[in-house]
């Protein structure tokens, strides 16, 4: 269990957070740039000391400003993956990974580094210099290096943002698997809610130095606590398996049941993303009509007012949310437990391969 409490002045605003994440679980902090996300990681790693705060990991206390305890970064056992990866340019890939491995003969250090690189499928790049590696390769080396320390906690700063769109999906999938495997508490920060939803078991939305809401990605999307969270959570993400169809559309069989169509190409496992404001709701017994291709029977889970709109949390059975006006919500008499049909156009359905 990683526990963080920190209060610090950061330029224009004050960082004030209290977070915890369990072993084997990933808390993704999502928020716009300048919200104080990276500062949280730096406080945990000991790279910056907050005015007031307490950081503990398992039964180790790393920081307690009340007693003046501030353990040096090198003794905190944090695996920190920096945003631009921060690989040492003068060392080869394997030497980067072997850097934290100490007190062993060179051959043994190399063997362990190779083992880790192998796990990420980049063992053949062991002798390459960082500047010759692609973004995706650098990311793998950086994660391998962070794990080489056998960290007690893993900290990831925008692990996917330095990658191009094509590499991002596969790198994200790989990273999610690694995070599940390591079994240490993980804190991840990202400016992209979709990324947070894919990698985090729980998501905390951070704005102006404060965590404004915490929960599962579906919970946040379904019942955002503020219009900021509503706007930030943006697209709904469903998972399924895509199959190109003769009619030129891609049909996706959703995990857990149901199927949707998209105009975007796709084949195999995909993430389907659609914005809540693209989704319309109709009474459960309405016959199919109109131009929308996607009709999904859903159950209403929550109804949350955000300003002049209503965010409706749905189960289809995967979590989904729709954003409708006050007036339509009244007409439909929506309440938790009631049934409805969610409809949206195939053209509003984006596919990301997983």
């Amino acid at each position: 269990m990683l526990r963080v409490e920190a209060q610090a002045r950061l330029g224009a605003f004050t960082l004030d957070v209290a977070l915890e994440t369990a072993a084997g679980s990933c808390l993704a902090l999502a928020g716009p740039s300048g919200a104080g996300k990276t500062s949280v990681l730096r406080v945990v790693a000991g790279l910056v000391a907050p005015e007031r705060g307490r950081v503990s990991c398992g039964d180790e206390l790393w920081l307690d400003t009340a007693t003046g305890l501030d353990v040096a970064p090198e003794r905190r056992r944090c695996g920190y993956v920096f945003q631009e990866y921060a690989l040492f340019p003068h060392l080869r890939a394997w030497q980067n990974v072997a850097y934290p491995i100490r007190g062993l003969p060179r051959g043994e250090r190399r063997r362990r580094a190779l083992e880790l690189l192998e796990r990420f499928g980049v063992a053949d790049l062991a002798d390459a210099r960082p500047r010759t590696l692609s973004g995706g390769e650098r990311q793998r080396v950086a994660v391998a290096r962070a794990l080489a320390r056998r960290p007690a906690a893993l900290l990831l700063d925008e692990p996917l943002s330095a990658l191009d769109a094509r590499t991002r999906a596969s790198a994200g999938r790989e990273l999610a698997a690694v995070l599940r495997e390591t079994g240490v508490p993980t804190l991840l920060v990202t400016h992209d809610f979709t990324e947070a939803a894919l990698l985090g078991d729980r998501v905390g939305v951070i704005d102006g130095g404060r965590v404004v809401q915490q929960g599962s990605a579906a919970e946040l999307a379904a019942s955002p606590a503020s219009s900021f969270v509503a706007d930030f959570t943006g697209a709904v993400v469903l998972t399924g398996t895509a199959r190109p169809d003769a009619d030129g559309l891609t049909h996706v069989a959703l995990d857990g049941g149901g199927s949707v169509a998209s105009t975007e190409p796709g084949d195999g496992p995909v993430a389907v993303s659609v914005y809540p404001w693209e989704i319309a709701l109709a009474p459960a017994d309405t016959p199919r009509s109109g131009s929308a291709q996607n009709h999904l029977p859903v159950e209403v889970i929550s109804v949350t007012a955000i300003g002049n709109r209503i965010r409706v949390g749905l189960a289809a059975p995967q979590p989904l949310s729709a954003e409708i006006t006050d007036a339509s919500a009244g007409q439909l008499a929506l309440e938790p437990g009631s049934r409805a049909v969610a409809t949206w156009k195939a053209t509003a359905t984006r596919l990301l391969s997983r």
Partner: protein
Amino acid sequence: MRHSGWFSFVVLVPMLAVVLCFLTLPIVAIFVDTGPLDLLSSLGEDGALEALRLSLTCSAIAVGFIVLFGTPAAYLLARRRFRGRAVLVTLVELPLVLPPAVAGIGLLAALGPKGVLGGLVEDAGIRLVLTTAGVILALTFVAAPFYLRQAQSAFEALDRTWLEASRTLGASEARTFLRVAIPTAGPGLISGLALAWGRALGEFGATLMFAGSFRGITQTVPLAIYERFSTDFTGALALSAVLVAVSAALLLSVKLLSGSAWLGSAAR
């Protein structure tokens, strides 16, 4: 430049030609006037080899001191922000603009027999004035800012996250300095070292004033050249050619050596 217009041909190219001629002509002239035989025979002359040996050892020791003390000092100046830092940086660079004669007087005033710390130095049983140790001191004083400046800007250019990554990977501040900061700043440090060494080899004024010009004890090559200049112009010329050749060879080999070994890897 792909589209070179009249400006290149009428202004830039001729200006470069003028600059090149002006800067290289004296050096070329030294070699034109000195045949290889003169060179060899001048080395055989009294004191020439001694002067060369003295120049090389004193400058090497001075550069050693400069690197040993200057590298951590430059790192601190480059990586920390503290009050009075700008003043410190200026103080460290001051010897750069000091005329060598002033440097010599200053050293005498500080460490000479009647100087501020003269008594202390004497009590410690150290003799600086008119000794080889004095030569090393003068060279160190004059050449150090060249290294410090370069080292400081090399350390300033380092990516902060490299140093932070090293810390989070279990390396102490000292280990981070040795294993990450120095290797990654390598190219800048080496070029600073080359500059400082070049300056030390050519040092004349401060050495003359502080250590004097005694054959075999304090007479480095520049001082030997000056001594011959009034009586034996050819000899002075030959010794000058030797100094140019030695300096050039030294600097070139420093650059090549480091270039092949680790500069290639550290350069981004």
